């Protein structure tokens, strides 16, 4: 199996896991603004499908990369401002999200490398 394929499917796995964690968090843990967690989780699961289908990768992959960074920074600044979202589930979610950012960077680099373009 090609490296780019492995990276892409590992990203799909991470996206799906984060989506499920966000859904769980919104359902039973978030305390407030839980609807936002549902939306974020649904978007993650949707993007897992998009990345899995390799639909418009030159747009979709950077978009997912940016989305993951955006949510990570959003969480960090909100947590600093309110003290909310500082718990084990959120930490696990964000650790996986950080892993996803690295994974997506490798996916983008791999899919845009000359060997895969030729």
């Amino acid at each position: 199996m090609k490296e780019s394929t492995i990276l892409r499917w590992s990203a799909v796995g991470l996206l799906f896991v984060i989506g499920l964690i966000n859904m769980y968090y919104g359902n039973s843990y978030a305390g407030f603004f839980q609807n936002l967690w549902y939306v974020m989780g649904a978007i993650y699961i949707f993007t897992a499908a998009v990345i899995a289908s390799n639909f418009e990768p030159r747009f979709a992959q950077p978009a997912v990369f940016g989305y993951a960074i955006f949510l990570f920074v959003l969480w960090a600044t909100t947590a600093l401002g309110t003290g909310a979202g500082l718990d084990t589930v959120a930490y696990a979610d964000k650790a996986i999200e950080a892993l996803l950012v690295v994974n997506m960077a490798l996916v983008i680099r791999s899919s845009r490398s000359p060997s895969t373009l030729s």
Partner: protein
Amino acid sequence: MTQSTTKQWSTGKLLLVVGVVAIVAGAAVGTSVGYAVRYAAPTTRSFYLFNNSLPFDQNVWGIPHDVFSPDRITVNKGDKVVIYYRNIEDTTEDHNFVMDSPYTFDAVVHAGQNETFPIASTLKSTTAVVVHVNQTATITFTASWAGVFRYYCAYHQPTMTGYLVVLG
């Protein structure tokens, strides 16, 4: 510059630009959200809970005269709840504190009238704690589920019952 180098640089530039835009946007939105919800954020809410005896003869009326004071605790979903439960009986009568599912709590029982006394027992993720006379139990949990949930003393039913109201 070779074509390969150009491609690598383009990828790096793409990642940099997307990353910077995402960080700036995330920080801007996060700061705004943090500012907007600062006063609605979950917080720690402390309550002092006591047993109380109503002035009637429980043998005549056929029900216990024991009740909780207060018998309503209201918090927001997500709040950390700390209950300082004191058994203030003037007889050697035990009481316990039980919560209905799905709630569990941690409890530290102190062998005296406040939290400065030595710890008599510690319970984790339990649904019930016994408090002897002149003891204090510090009960902590997070109000993760919205709704109305019963807390009660199993020894003095049905009168010694209260309700935790969690606003969703």
